[in-house]
């Protein structure tokens, strides 16, 4: 998948969970990505983050720690 598209999709998820109550937003972003993203998409996200993760929402960065 084009990196911009992946960043856009991941950030959309982060934006939703940021609006939710509680202090576990990063965990919920991670859980959503685990539940709905196929492993190779998650692998692409992890590799992108390892590469600096430019443009990704901070919540996605934090979520990636538990992916």
């Amino acid at each position, binding site marked *: 998948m084009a990196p911009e598209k992946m960043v856009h999709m991941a950030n959309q998820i982060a934006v939703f969970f940021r609006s939710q109550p509680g202090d576990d937003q990063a965990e919920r972003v991670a859980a959503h990505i685990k*539940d709905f993203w*196929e492993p190779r998409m998650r692998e692409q996200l992890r590799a992108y983050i390892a590469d600096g993760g430019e443009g990704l929402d901070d919540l996605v960065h934090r979520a990636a720690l538990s992916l």
Partner: protein
Amino acid sequence: MTATMGLDDRDMGTPAREGAPVRLTIDGFSVTVPAGTSVMRAAAEVGLSVPKLCATDSLEAFGSCRLCVVEIDGRRGTPASCTTPVTDGMVVHTQSERVRKIRKGVMELYVSDHPLDCLTCAANGDCELQDMAGAVGLRDVRYTPGENHYDPSGTGARSQAEARLRMPEGEANPRYIAKDASNPYFTYDPSKCIVCSRCVRACEEVQGTFALTIEGRGFDSRVKAGAASDDFFSSDCVSCGACVQACPTATLQEKSVAALGTPTRSVVTTCAYCGVGCSFKAELAGDTLVRMEPYKHGKANRGHSCVKGRFAYGYASHKDRILSPMIRDSVDEPWREVSWDEALTFAAGRLRAIQERYGQKSIGVITSSRCTNEETFLVQKLARAVFGNNNTDTCARVCHSPTGYGLGQTFGTSAGTQDFDSVEHTDTVIVIGANPTDGHPVFASRLKKRLRAGAKLIVIDPRRIDLVRSAHVEAAHHLPLRPGTNVAVVTAMAHVIVTERLYDEAFIRARCDWDEFLHFAEFVSDPARGPEETEALTGVPAADLRAAARLYATGGNGAIYYGLGVTEHSQGSTTVMGIANLAMLTGNIGRPGVGVNPLRGQNNVQGSCDMGSFPHELPGYRHVKNADVRAIFEAAWGVPIDPEPGLRIPNMLDAAVGGTFKGLYCQGEDILQSDPDTKHVASGLAAMECVIVHDLFLNETANYAHVFLPGSTFLEKDGTFTNAERRINRVREVMKPRNGYADWEVTQRLANAMGAGWSYTHPAEIMAEIAATTPSFAGVSYELLDEKGSVQWPVGDASPEGTPIMHVDSFVRGRGRFIVTDYVATDERTGARFPLLLTTGRILSQYNVGAQTRRTENVAWHEEDRLEIHPHDAEVRGIEDGDWVKLTSRAGETSMRALLTDRVGPGVVYTTFHHPRTQANVITTDFSDWATNCPEYKVTAVQVGLSNGPTDWQEDYTAQAERSRRIIAAE
């Protein structure tokens, strides 16, 4: 032979009533019926049919024909039994000498103005006038032909055959009106009309269009469609067929019956068009389908139909249908017709070779929301048990996947909460992002009936859809929001309900999580989320929104019906949750007349989702990560199930472009035409090494396919569909598959060519496997369906006959969950380059990508997609009605002709996507719902300008499609 499942299919004369029992005696027989029942219906209940012409049980009694007169002890005269309600102790005589004489006289008068052409009449054998002439013993007509409507020659001929022989030159009968054959499917022959008004009443009461009227008085009375200058086709008639069905004579007659003769057998089955899931009697002579007639015991449609289900079945026998399997090594070659064995061996070999080279997860399937539950179940089983991965998705991805997520999160299950009958108990209806009169016409008719009876309507839609104002229906509020602002509007409604304290605290405390409610209430109460603050971005006047919210919260039973205008957005799932919030806030859940009701686009969207088509869920909406769920299927199938979610359709295409997804089995879906960003879909398909298309026609996707497996129509197989009310309804084999195999057999053969060893001999066995593995279907069997007609899931020990209304005492997830719905603007924004917003939708006569309806006479109503544009936006661009215009977005460009209309507001344009040449999805982008990847079809920033005709891309596409459809026939 009629498969009516033991139900009485007779015409009882007048509608059923509910009421206290009333006991009476008819011709010596004692009968007990509900209060309000007519004497006619009571007689029918004991098997005594009173002669009748103007009465039929789909319509309220009218009392005009005077044929149903009876005598009642203690009453004077001879009252009409259709309009006389029963009373306790009444003693009725239906066959006295006096009434016999009256009836005979009435019939003699009717027949004196009716041609005696019975033997050559299209209604011969299916004519109530003929039947009644027999029933009353009419043996002669004493009146000589005088002034009449039937004799074109005006020479006193008794029959039209005789009139043609006598036809004078120049002179004729001025009262005679020739047959109107303007409708593609039925004719109107005024010369055979007995002016019983059944057609006019059906158009009003059942369909709710009011296209027909009785013109003139007395002997001059004639049925008329539309205004003086109209014929049936140019009138408001929507060709639903209700008038034709109601007509007792050949006056309104299907052309198919006229051409083929009366049918000799009928089979009850389920329509394969929209998610209403109407029951029909398929009426046949041998294996020739003569007519589809709506089945009055169908619980979704209650005897009504629309132009698609009733008439648009010609695609099943269209010359374009492909009946032989075909293969080719590469997509630039012509197709080669081959045997089934060769095609399946070729396909299986390629798929296995791809897996060996690129890995187990390099291939996948797309199940069809048009195929049966059983077929869908097998296709996802093919991926999970034979391919060994979860790469299965379905066209519901691109329509209602946000419904699955949103309702799952809030209520605990992915389904509408009501049955369609529920609308009869509704007081206030919100229709949001749906256009039922076009997309779900039979439900729309039921809704309009309720609106005419006084229920209030709120329409939330960028377009002024027909429901906003049409015959005898007017929305109390139309909130014409800017596309993409659903969440802001729904949240603002919650703001009004919470801040004005219109919420149902008792319901919320009893049924929902109170802490989550408090948080939600605080969130929505922020003035920034109120209608005044959001008006500038939504375009909805704050006062209107406030009034609409108050009406929904306080107007009695409130029901929400929504469609793809809700789901197909970047925030589709959020809007679904917002809708669920509104229902919980107001306590509109868990009883008749309320609820949250997704209107499903295709016939089996609900079923395909139920059957585990999504890559993260096994059948019954259970995540693949759950070991206990996997264990059920691992035990049943004897293979391990992958615990990781698979690829969704857009992800498959991305992975294909990326080189890791190489093979696809696509059953009954045309992703190249229906999915967004056509160029991206085409690149994905082109990058695959084995695309198997299993379909009726060489669809657009097949341009990129290597294997074509011919499909069977819904008329040619057994199975079940599950409609938008969770109603599981039987699809029955009406005729043998023209391609040789039902679709479930084809999937089984493909699986077996890959070594699966499946041995199903009938879809009932597949349903047994579904029931054994999926709790919501635990009690479902073909025996139960044959007995009950249909059932709504869940069906199990707790609800052995199904569940018409969900969440009655508690939510499926326990406590209802309020979820904060923060509005986030889509990144698809207008600007200087693309200043207009395009939104897309459907039209009544066409269905989805049009593969079926374009191959029927329905094209008479809609032969091309048009771009609806507001006159103001057109004027500044120099565009006039009918001009070719080019539509450009950041994804691509296409062209079509413009239709100037103020149904869309300034700044918004609208089109349908029924025709491949238009390629509306060249324009749509790859933005999608945050939770589910459901594409954002409903918002695309575009520019519109004059053009000379089709774009280069359209011309190239058409040429490529033609090249790709070359076929070398088998020897």
